[in-house]
């Protein structure tokens, strides 16, 4: 007991050895300082982690949202019959003979008349004016004419994609200084773009082709879209779901409910935990060696990608399925066995339905993991393939070459034109939207169906 409690109200005359409890001595101060320092380190560590998350997310959003908008130029094109249908018989075979190149004069003429109509003063020649449009514009016009041959001879209003430099200028990526050494656009053309913008015919708008369209070649970043590779990812996910879920659930049921304690079981368990930690690229090597070199399955096919990703996600699904089987209390099994069910019946009729929400959650998380995986896809040839046409039919969807979302993003990041970087970030936004949705569904499922026994 301290002196204070014995002599209430009286201050101690002689200082006790340790000093007053109200006055911290140097050592206590040092220890307390160390304490708060230590705590600060912890807060700083978490702060850095969260800061990185914020930086990453803001970076993705600021760099990627541009891809969802594209600069368009509105033009009224006179579809001259004497150019497009020389014989005048509206025969589709004859119209097809006019190549994409043959449509260029129509667009230049339309641009020229538009300039006159708006009263824009420019020194540019019509050909240089046409350069601000995308190379995809002629193809777009040709496809329209081939689809609607009746429109020949009329004047139709079109919304054309502009060149990626013009688009970059409208988005602030390209400036008059940065194009000093750029052969594909000049300062005069940018002035012309300014005039068109002020006149209201050149504007930025939402670009659905980025989400649903096909990839384009190196020369036309403005026309590239992620839609076809999204289909490739979708078909891969079908394969993963169709194989990984039944195999994973069967394997988990065996290991959790039936496996005897023996060496085989041990080997299986060790294998599963090791496969979960094998680098993903090793699965790519396996896919290349077994599925492509040995079994001669088609290169770049979503089927092969799906098989590789199945092997990769199996451990994840097995681990989560086992956890949810384990969470079903033994009393359920005992009750079923007690009324005469066999062990198999108890598992399939009672334990499995109760574990289903947990299994589903684990499967969705496994699928999300597989959806974002890139490295194994590099080795089975899903990168470097230009996904320019959607697969025709379901069998072709599995077997014909395609890309996948992450592979497409990687492909764009390798191309020389910086306009593709914007698309890579945009692709990441779409990929992350898928992942976030899947994970949210998983969390909601868990909340909704979670049972406390």
């Amino acid at each position, binding site marked *: 007991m301290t002196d204070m409690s014995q002599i209430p109200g009286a201050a101690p005359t002689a200082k006790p050895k340790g000093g007053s409890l109200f006055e911290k001595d140097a050592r206590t101060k040092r220890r307390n300082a160390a304490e708060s320092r230590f705590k600060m380190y912890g807060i700083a560590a*978490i702060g850095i982690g969260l800061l990185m998350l914020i930086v990453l997310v803001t970076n993705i959003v600021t760099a990627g949202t541009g891809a969802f908008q594209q600069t368009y130029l509105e033009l009224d094109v006179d579809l001259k019959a004497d150019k497009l249908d020389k014989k005048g018989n509206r025969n589709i075979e004859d119209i097809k003979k006019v190549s994409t190149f043959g449509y260029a004069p129509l667009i230049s003429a339309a641009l020229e008349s538009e300039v006159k109509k708006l009263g824009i003063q420019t020194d540019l020649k019509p050909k240089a004016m046409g350069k601000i449009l995308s190379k995809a514009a002629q193809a777009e016009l040709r496809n329209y004419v081939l689809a609607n041959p009746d429109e020949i001879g009329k004047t139709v209003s079109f919304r054309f994609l502009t060149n990626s430099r013009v688009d970059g200028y409208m988005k602030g990526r390209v400036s008059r200084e940065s194009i000093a050494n750029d052969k594909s656009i000049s300062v005069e053309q940018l002035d012309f773009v300014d005039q068109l913008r002020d006149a209201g015919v050149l504007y930025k708008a939402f670009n659905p082709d980025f989400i649903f369209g096909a990839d384009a070649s190196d020369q036309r970043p403005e026309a590239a879209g992620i839609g076809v590779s999204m289909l490739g990812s979708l078909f891969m996910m079908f394969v993963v779901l169709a194989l990984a879920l039944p195999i994973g659930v069967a394997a988990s049921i065996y290991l959790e409910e039936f496996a005897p304690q023996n060496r085989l079981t041990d080997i299986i368990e060790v294998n599963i935990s090791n496969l979960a930690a094998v680098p993903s690229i090793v699965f790519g090597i396996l896919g290349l060696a077994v599925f492509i070199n040995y079994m001669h399955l088609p290169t770049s096919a979503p089927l092969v990608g799906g098989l590789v990703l199945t092997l990769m996600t199996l451990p994840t699904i097995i681990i989560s399925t086992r956890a949810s089987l384990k969470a079903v209390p033994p009393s359920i099994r005992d009750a079923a066995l007690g009324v005469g069910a066999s062990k*198999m019946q108890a598992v399939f009729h009672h334990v499995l339905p109760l574990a289903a929400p947990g299994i589903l959650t684990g499967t969705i998380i496994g699928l999300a993991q597989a959806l974002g995986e890139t490295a194994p896809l590099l080795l089975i040839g899903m990168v470097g393939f230009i996904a320019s046409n959607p697969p025709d039919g379901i069998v072709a969807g599995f077997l014909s070459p395609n890309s996948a979302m992450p592979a497409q993003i990687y492909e764009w990041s390798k191309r020389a034109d910086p306009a593709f970087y914007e698309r890579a970030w945009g692709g990441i936004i779409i990929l992350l939207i898928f992942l976030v949705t899947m994970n949210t569904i998983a969390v909601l499922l868990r909340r909704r169906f979670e049972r406390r026994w």
Partner: protein
Amino acid sequence: MALSWLLLILLALAVIGYFAGRSRALASVGGDARDLHSLPSYYGYNVALTALVPAIGVLIVWLLAQPMIVNSTVSGLIPDQAIPEGSDRGLIMSEVRRVAYGLDGAVSSGAMTEAQAQDGDADIEILTKSLKDAGQVLTQDVTQPILVAAQKFRSMTSTGTIAMQVVVLALALLGAAFAYVRTHKEFRARNVVEQGVLALLLLAASIAILTTIGIVLSMLFETMNFFQLHSWKDFFFGSTWAPNFRGGSELSILPLLWGTLYISVIALLVAVPIGLFAAIYLSEYASGVTRSIAKPLLEILAGIPTIVYGLFALLTVGPALVSMFGDGGVLGVGWMASSNAVLTAGLVMGIMLIPFVSSLSDDIINAVPQSMRDGSLGLGATHSETVRNVILPAALPGIVGAILLAASRAIGETMIVVMAAGAIAKFSGNPFEAMTTITTRIVSQLTGDTDFASPETLVAFALGLTLFIITLGLNIFALYIVRKYREQYE
């Protein structure tokens, strides 16, 4: 008949078998299910499973074995002198396959009759022309031996496919008939079906073993091929990585290993302190609310695909570092020439590993018994002293295990280094230089046109096997430590 039709027929057979078996069992007791040994549906399942399982098993084995047998027979047909200089049997075989598929395509599109396709004495030039006219892709002109081999390939493949369909369907019918005949009220259908299902479950569980065997074998064979073409001494102990597709390459793993380890060490230098302090704070200091917000947010970092980190390194972190350390940068030091550098890849990989280290360490710190904390606090130690002198020493083995697991992740990581580390293999201590890693080289040697007879391609398998062994060793060791540590306190 396509494979999908075969599968559909099998399925239909199984469904018919199910109802047939069920009704036969019921008929054997005059419709009173109580006299049966098992529930009626088990008799049905018995017929369906006996029809389906052996047939599908044979189908899978046949599909795997047939290409191998056909390939080896056909490649024996090609005389050695028919293989041109600088080519090999594998390349000729792929040409043979291409011609065979081309003939198939031409016949099915009607550009050629079956008799023309099978004509062994056909004029090569006319044949090549008609194949090309039919839109089939040929890389070189068809020669006589290739044509003969392709025709043999076609005939063997089609005979094999027909034989397979006959065998599989016969097996399914036999199985169904056998099980149907056995169906009787005394027959213990449930026991048989459950035995069968158990065998299927075991098979599913064994796929994990099959995958591991597949990984090891696929890399082992190609690695052995590689060591026949290239000296193993150079691979393990050489000092230069200089692949040259014209021959005379120097392919040593050591510079790659150096780059891999260097980047991994930088990543761990970022991830371990941050992750560990975050874990200590979350498990020892943070209130329930803070923990429930900060922990899932940190774990988002672990759920982001590596391609995103790769792009982040390539387009954001790299240029940012160059603007600091590069020529004319903020610091004015001019150390960094390009955004591809060890530091770029290491920093970003470190960010990726933060949640990995923190959640593993969090689990381990939480496993330290409360009595140890209480004892230390009761003796008058401050909270941080308790953490440093009691909890961390107690949790150390587990934390070492967590760090080893993180290291194995860093060594096997591919996308970040492929996009941000560069392609130059060298021994250098400068973190601002570009260096390359094992995974990067695997990707670059195996993408594009690959020739599986050249050491420059095959080296990727040797690299892959080495990577597999390193990460496997690290994982097993780390799991051993973590498990041993857990037992200590349980």
